[in-house]
């Protein structure tokens, strides 16, 4: 491991030792890029401060850097320690994207199908758009996960990283089922092709691609957490 290797290398320049350590750590962090970069910048500052503190006590720079690295722990251990936070950050960001882009897909289908629940009644409305219960389930799961991994976790039971990731996979799966159902429904209806239909299908196909990518990433992160 890098810390063991560096702790014994007395001839290494401190800056090089810290750079090697951070490079090893960067290779092992998994999660949103900006969050990873922020973690590395923060740890770089901490390591340099720890090195300076040791130099101030009289240690030679190379040994000071090695001692600071040993104190911080191996890149593998530090990456493991950050895995939970990075997973939660990924889940929150992905779920927020689904919530933000949901109306951009839904609006085309609403314009195309033009349902009037106040005229036809709720049952006829759900019959016209049979995915309504799935949409409500996805919104509830997304809202619940965001609430219990964010500020509301002070009052609500906190959702852990594994559960947040599972919720992300479930929401992506629901979105895919919703989009596939809507596309299939409009195709078998035999309705004439209109620009609104093309827009609605294109929006759903784009979200299906995003859902597949999300499921692939999330499954990969899930396998690394086990």
């Amino acid at each position, binding site marked *: 491991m890098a810390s063991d290797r560096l702790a014994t290398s007395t001839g290494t320049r401190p800056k090089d030792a810290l750079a090697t350590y951070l490079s090893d750590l960067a290779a092992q962090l998994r999660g949103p890029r900006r969050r990873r970069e922020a973690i590395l910048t*923060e*740890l770089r*500052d901490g*390591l340099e*401060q720890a090195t300076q503190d040791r130099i101030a006590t009289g240690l030679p720079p190379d040994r000071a850097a090695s001692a600071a690295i040993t104190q911080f*722990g191996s890149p593998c251990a530090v990456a493991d*320690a*950050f895995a939970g936070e990075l997973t939660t950050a990924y889940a929150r960001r992905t779920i927020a994207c689904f919530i933000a882009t949901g109306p951009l897909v839904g609006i085309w289908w609403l314009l195309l199908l033009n349902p009037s629940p106040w005229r036809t009644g709720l049952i006829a409305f759900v019959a016209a758009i049979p995915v309504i219960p799935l949409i409500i389930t996805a919104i509830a799961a997304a809202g619940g996960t965001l609430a219990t991994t964010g*500020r509301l976790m*002070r009052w609500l039971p906190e959702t852990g990283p594994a559960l947040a990731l599972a919720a992300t996979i479930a929401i992506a799966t629901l979105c895919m089922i919703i989009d596939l159902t809507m596309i299939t429904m409009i195709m078998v209806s035999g309705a004439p092709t209109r620009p609104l239909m093309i827009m609605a299908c294109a929006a759903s196909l784009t979200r299906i691609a995003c859902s597949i990518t999300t499921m692939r990433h999330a499954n990969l992160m899930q396998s690394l957490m086990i």
Partner: protein
Amino acid sequence: MLPMRPELLKGHLDALLLAVLEPGPQHGYAVIESLRSGSDGTLDLPTGTVYPALHRLERAGLIASDWQTVGGRRRRAYHLTPAGHIALSEQRALWDQFSTAVTTLLKRRTWPATA
């Protein structure tokens, strides 16, 4: 003195971090050092415990952070939010209650024999 294992602090780490940040903003490494020096070396917590815990507290809205440039380095300084001050007061009250109960129970004394 033996360093305390992080798992022994489970449930109390949040309060300790909030208490360390109460006097003013500090960066992550300074928080680790404050925990160590403030406990006479008892709380020598690893980086992998403190930094992720700070990030979690920020996610919960109990602390906030600002990026500064110090000596050419980018530094992230954490400070308590109003919600963090309230949470710290609550945690202090809970700890007083808990520690009084545990201290009372752990005192060496003769327990009354049960029938």
